[in-house]
């Protein structure tokens, strides 16, 4: 059992977020099954390949933040900042991909108000994107601290806590990608 209160707090926070996303996912599945749309849906509107490509960056960022943590444990300050910056870059590429996808969909007049697919798709991926963005802010600030030397010395649990969050955001995307994109291939 962990007794670090920041970690425990983050685990609780992740629990609430899991349920929050769970509800949004349920809504998505509910409409996929109960109210088949004429018009745009996951099958005819999404570019699975492209999103898969951008997803790789997000998945990779989980690895880089793990490497950052490892560097911290080994006392490699340069490594920490390097891997954190890499994480931010990877995350930004993912967000860029999502932005591109949104722009394309909206260009085809697929929006929140188009039909239940539009509503649930944008809500779900939008909230995930928001979480990625918040995570990137946190990691960015952390990287700033590391680079300016503020994190040096006392062993902070900040990185561990944030990386927990980041892995969670990643896992949510694995789920979303499976449910929205991969299942649409079936």
């Amino acid at each position: 059992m962990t007794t670090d209160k920041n970690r425990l707090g983050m685990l609780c926070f992740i629990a609430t977020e899991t349920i929050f996303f769970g509800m949004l996912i349920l809504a998505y599945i509910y409409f996929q099954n109960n109210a088949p749309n004429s018009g745009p849906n996951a099958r005819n509107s999404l570019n699975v390949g492209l999103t898969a490509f951008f997803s790789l960056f997000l998945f990779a960022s989980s690895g880089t933040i793990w490497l950052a943590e490892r560097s911290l444990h080994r006392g490699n300050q340069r490594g920490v900042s390097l891997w954190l910056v890499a994480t931010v870059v990877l995350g930004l590429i993912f967000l860029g991909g999502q932005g591109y996808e949104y722009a394309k969909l909206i260009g085809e007049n697929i929006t929140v108000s188009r039909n239940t697919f539009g509503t649930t798709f944008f809500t779900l991926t939008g909230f995930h994107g928001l979480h990625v963005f918040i995570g990137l802010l946190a990691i960015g600030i952390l990287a700033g601290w590391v680079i300016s030397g503020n994190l040096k010395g006392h062993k902070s649990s900040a990185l561990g806590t944030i990386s927990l969050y980041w892995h969670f955001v990643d896992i949510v995307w694995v789920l979303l990608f499976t449910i929205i994109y991969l299942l649409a291939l079936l």
Partner: protein
Amino acid sequence: MSQEFVLVPEPTDALPIGKTGSLLYWIASVDHKLLGIMYIGAALIFFVIGGVEALVMRLQLGSARNTLLSPEAYNQLFTLHGTTMIFLVFVPMVVGFGVYLVPLQIGARDMAFPRLNALGFWMLVFGGLLLYYSIIAGSPPDSGWFAHAPLTAKQYSSAQGVDYWAIGLLLTGIGTTTAGLNFIVTILTMRAKGMRLLQVPMFTWIMLVDGFLIIGTLPPLNAALVMLLIDRNLGGAFFNPQAGGSSILYQHLFWVFGHPEVYLLVLPTFGIISEVLPVFSRKPLFGFNFIAGSALAIAFLSYAAYAHHMFAVGLGNAFNAFFAMSTALIAIPTGVKIFNWIATIWGGKIRFTTSMLFAVSFIVLFTIGGISGVTFGIVPTDWQTTDSYYLVAHFHYVLYGGSFFAVMSGLYYWFPKVTGRMLSEKWGKWVFWLMFAGFNLTFFIQHILGLMGMPRRVYSYDDLPNWSLFNLISTLGSFLLAFSVLLFIISVVLALVKGEKAPDNPWDAWTLEWATTSPPPIENFEQVPPIRGRRPLWDLQHPDDQDWQRSHSGEKIGGQPHEASLPSEHRKDNSQ
């Protein structure tokens, strides 16, 4: 013995800002005691607001075809009343008790995250202010406290009221979630050295369970509110049948929050009762482990029972039968609590303080509400009684007769500790009896009205035999009730101004909060007594009759420590 006293770790957080008692001192505070007081104070203020709303409603209902209020005004009133009472009275009330007491009961300096604690409080306040700002903006919400779709869709509620309601609740919801998280971390990681998890006082244990309930319960509400806002403001289709959405999805999301929510509100009040009854019966809590376990059972079952609010939706017999069963199951752990409380006072030496009067009447009134709850779980009778005044009576019995009586009991019990002043017992007896009479007068007859066919949420009704009379009785009762609340407020003010000074342990109680001064110093304790069992102060006072040297039935079993109070290795480290 005295060498075993455990030192409380030095505070690592910033000390209070501003001069003691100044506005800044309160606003900038991150101290759990000040925040607890502010939570409870805010709850009481909102209680008066919500209560006055109820009084105006009762005035309108006092006679058939009354024209005091327009239908719109009445609908806004019951929406504000319900929302206020649930989210802005009861939530801050129980959270306030928790925030104030949990660190004291576990011998800690503060909550695990003091700043988060302050954030949670202020989010709740701002959420409440936003809700009430809707009145100034000219369009209070009027969709009822659960705001079923599709009445909340733009085409049926074009005014902004629903948006204020949703954003306000979103803010309070996030604030409450942070409090829940804080309880969990505090209780799991900050207990005084030597206090094992099952040795915490029952109130604290229940706040731990409640913490889990909070963080599991509010996210569905937040999700539903977010979807509602997307529907209303971005043209989303979630709950809008015309666009392919589902109005019933909203009900699922709301009630998977709404039902656990009511247990989230009631559990801490069970905790209060579990502290008060033993102290005024001079006996330990009967069946601690069973009460503790039943709290867990209630928390789990509450999720499984949510759709008993949807028996009339038409979801089919299989669906309804499942939820009928889970609803019935909840009665069992609740009954376990009731019977354990009775066993606690059984054979005790009862002192009828005001606090104890409220606590004992809680047992009876809550049972009435609980049994009417069970009649809803019998699906076919729910088909008759749902959304009638019988339901209004049910939830006021559990919420007011139950929970609020427990809250009153807790307020009388801990007031001396929190303020350093005694509340007048003479006034207290008046408050109790008037409140008891007023409450039953107001709400008992509503059972009958409901069975006579009066639906809830009607601003007016036809002049049918007895309807006016019974409603008038209820209205008169509500004014008696209001009078008792007024007396209580006056007696609080009197106590604060010129009340008798309170000793550190006026009730001769046994948990750690009574081991420090009244009111406690900013750092809570310099040292806490050794913790061997659940009643450290009893053990301190009775060196030759320690809790852990006794069997359940009260016999001495010699030096064998009680199963739950084996000295831990921590203590060895600490005892010099």
